[in-house]
């Protein structure tokens, strides 16, 4: 197997790394923007680098740090970030066959390197009939990891050059980015009722003054998901 240069772990890793490059370029833009946000949370290169490598989940990092910047407590920021990452259970469950009979460190590495982007890449390659698996996923994950770590740390270093985010409208950058993320998460008309529920719950919670914004967001998100579970059908 390994004697054949077109198959085997190394070739699979390399093809995964090569094929993730267009997506890694997009991650760099996100990462730079995250770095600017992190600097508003008074995070330095060390904190940003530690978070990028230990958490390695873009959207959840953005949400948690955005909550921290907004003045939410650590608990609310943490709950919001973890709630957003619960979907990763479904991501790794769908590729659990990649991990059978592997040593523990490969299972841990593969788990940590599983993201939406390289998961989608490897699953799409398999649907196209290619015999790729674990090392293809790891190759893509390695590319994304490097892109995310470098761009977020670069972003936080570069951010000190920007004087006052609100005066330039840059505080709105992530609201706009989240609007685009929402657009990419829209799956069709079955999302209408859950999303409407989320918005209504947040509006009620904020305008009634019953909850602070971070808990309003968690309550709204969970309420929408519950509605999707109850009212939808497969």
């Amino acid at each position, binding site marked *: 197997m390994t004697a054949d240069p077109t198959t085997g772990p190394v070739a699979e890793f390399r093809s995964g790394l090569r094929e993730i490059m267009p997506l890694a370029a997009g991650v760099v833009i996100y990462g730079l923007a995250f770095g600017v946000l992190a600097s508003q949370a008074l995070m330095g290169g060390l904190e940003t680098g530690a978070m990028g490598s230990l958490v390695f989940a873009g959207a959840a990092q953005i949400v948690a740090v955005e909550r921290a910047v907004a003045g939410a407590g650590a608990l609310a920021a943490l709950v919001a970030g973890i709630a957003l*990452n619960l979907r990763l259970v479904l991501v790794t469950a769908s590729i659990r066959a990649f991990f059978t009979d592997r040593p523990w460190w490969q299972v841990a590495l593969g788990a940590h390197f599983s993201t939406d982007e390289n998961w989608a890449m490897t699953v799409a390659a398999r649907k196209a009939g290619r015999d790729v698996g674990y090392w293809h996923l790891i190759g893509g994950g390695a590319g994304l990891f490097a892109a995310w770590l470098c761009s977020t740390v670069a972003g936080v270093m570069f951010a000190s050059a920007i004087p006052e985010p609100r005066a330039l409208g840059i505080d709105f950058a992530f609201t706009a980015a989240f609007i685009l993320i*929402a657009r990419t998460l829209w799956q069709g008309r079955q999302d209408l009722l859950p999303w409407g529920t989320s918005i209504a719950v947040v509006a009620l919670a904020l305008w009634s003054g019953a909850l602070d914004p971070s808990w309003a967001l968690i309550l709204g*998100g969970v309420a929408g998901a519950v509605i999707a579970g109850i009212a939808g059908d497969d």
Partner: protein
Amino acid sequence: MTDIWVIILGLAVGTFAARLGGILLGQRLPVTGGWARALSALPGTLIVALVAGQVFQGEWPEWIAGGLAAMAAILTRSLVLTMALGIIAVYVLRQYA
């Protein structure tokens, strides 16, 4: 600053647990039914709730800029264009607020 480390380490543990949990629980996770639908709907509903919270807490410049950014997102699906339009709109509108 300790708050930041609580968030970093807590999020690291929670995220790794979710990733490893999928591998370990595997077949025991539902792929259809209410729980599966709720879990797969959660990212979208959380993001929408987040955007709603941010926009509602602002004033009319944020409401209009949010609407323009939503239009850009729907029509172009481009991250760069959506962010650019949102930032420029909120910057210009705040001059009049």
